[in-house]
């Protein structure tokens, strides 16, 4: 499915829109239940490990992104507003393992709507500081790139073995 990704540098906002081939209640669950979130939230080869989560206004999800080597990067997402199966808002910030926040964070606004069994999710992320985004990418994406490189190496090795000329 096509993903819209619009960066408004002036407004310091990233707007992401994506459709999913599933009914709204299922997609809503995938965003709001820890056991489901942990299955998809972390871009491979990172894994997501939710330590605590209470999906209610004033509640939060406290989770770690974990590298294959076991390095943890903790994040807190505080829920500031919830309209069931329609919208929720959260404040996202890095933290240490004792849940002390590293500010500034970012404000997220997530909208859900369904049409003919397809669910559209629109996420707007307001970043007070690009520095935060930069750090997040430095952690998350480096791992992702390494994974891709490993995959490429495997593929090249396989192709080599298949080549009858060698």
């Amino acid at each position, binding site marked *: 499915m096509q993903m819209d990704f619009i960066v408004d540098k002036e407004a*310091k906002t990233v707007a992401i829109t994506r459709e*999913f*081939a599933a009914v709204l209640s299922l997609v809503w669950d*995938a965003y709001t239940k820890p056991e489901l979130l942990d299955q998809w939230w972390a*871009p491979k080869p990172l894994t997501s490990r939710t330590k605590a989560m209470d999906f209610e206004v004033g509640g939060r999800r406290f989770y770690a992104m974990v590298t294959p080597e076991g390095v943890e990067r903790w994040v807190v997402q505080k829920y500031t507003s919830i309209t069931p199966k329609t919208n929720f808002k959260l404040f996202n910030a890095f933290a240490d393992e004792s849940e002390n926040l590293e500010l500034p964070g970012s404000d997220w606004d997530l909208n859900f709507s369904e049409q003919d069994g397809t669910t559209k999710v629109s996420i707007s992320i307001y*970043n007070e*500081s690009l*520095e935060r985004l930069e750090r997040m990418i430095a952690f998350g994406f480096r791992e992702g790139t390494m994974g891709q490189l490993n995959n490429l190496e495997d593929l090249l090795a396989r192709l080599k073995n298949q080549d009858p000329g060698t």
Partner: protein
Amino acid sequence: MDIRRDVFQAIADPTRRAIIALIALQAMTPNAIAEHFDTSRQAVSKHLRILIECELVAQKQKGREIYYSLEIQKMKEIDKWLEQYRKIWETRFSQLDDVLATIKKQKKEEK
């Protein structure tokens, strides 16, 4: 107070974006830059200082004049970060596709 500048801050201001557009074409002296704006020279100097602190703009001495030029590489970095951020979300969502498909399959089998 120790203010750490970031690039979003540099490009959040319309005057600074205009300065960036100006000096992207050629290095300019502060006087030449200020001529393009209605604001005071002081105001322009302040914007230039912020751009330098963000490392988006470099200053070079040429004879008696100081010239300001754009650090193209730094501008590219902004787009690189954002491109990487986009990739994180793409990966995340394709993983969500898989999770949703698995749950749908499980539900069908239960019926």
